[in-house]
């Protein structure tokens, strides 16, 4: 597991049309999570439940309609506590569409040199994140 993850997609809509889906609960819930409470301004809460998994963080940067940064962690998870990693979503106009680039930074990496030690430390993180992704 690397400590940074980049994913991109191209959407057939303008950044103005895509942006609300990153900051409005009812639109956010269409693609991420089962419950959401968000306050899209720096320091505002970013809380999304994905089934049993409670993702907790706060908005760091909100620049409509091009860029959103929020912190990301899992409530009650010692390896990836609330707010411990960072997600940046950049919307770049591309013709009639939008290129969406999502970067997830500061994911827990090996904490110790011993590879086997690091591997077992990350087990909890992987389980929590994977469960979050599937619900």
């Amino acid at each position: 597991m690397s400590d940074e993850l980049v994913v991109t997609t191209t959407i057939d809509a303008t950044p103005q049309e895509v942006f609300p889906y990153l900051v409005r609960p009812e639109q956010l819930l269409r693609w991420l999570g089962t419950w959401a409470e968000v306050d899209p301004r720096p320091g505002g809460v970013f809380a999304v439940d994905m089934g049993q998994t409670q993702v907790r963080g706060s908005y760091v940067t909100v620049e409509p309609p091009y860029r959103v940064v929020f912190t990301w962690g899992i409530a009650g998870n010692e390896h990836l506590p609330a707010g411990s990693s960072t997600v940046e979503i950049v919307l770049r106009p591309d013709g009639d569409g939008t290129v969406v680039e999502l970067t997830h930074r500061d994911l827990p990496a090996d904490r110790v040199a011993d590879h086997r030690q690091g591997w077992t430390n990350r087990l909890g993180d992987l389980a929590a994140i994977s469960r979050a992704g599937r619900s």
Partner: protein
Amino acid sequence: MTVETADLVLRALADPTRRTMLRLVRSQELAAGQIATHFSMTQQAVSQHLQVLNRAGLISERREGTRRLYQLQPDALGPVRELLDDLWPDALDRLKRVVEQDKRSRS
């Protein structure tokens, strides 16, 4: 690599007791009895946890006389890593589908 395999691994990892057991056997092979000394539960309960880990392929089991010895099986993480890799790609696929669907229904 099936979803069923990944599910077994995830369910096994979801329990903090079993994660502690994995740490115990990460660098050395231990007998069930030795593992049990770290927990305040019955030997039978410990065995059940070890069986869950074993079925998920997270640890290997070896018999030596009457003892059962367990050790971490690092390769078992493969399916979980795949799921993790799928989190954001799947989410962005949904985002794309939803935005484009909404846009079409508006026009």
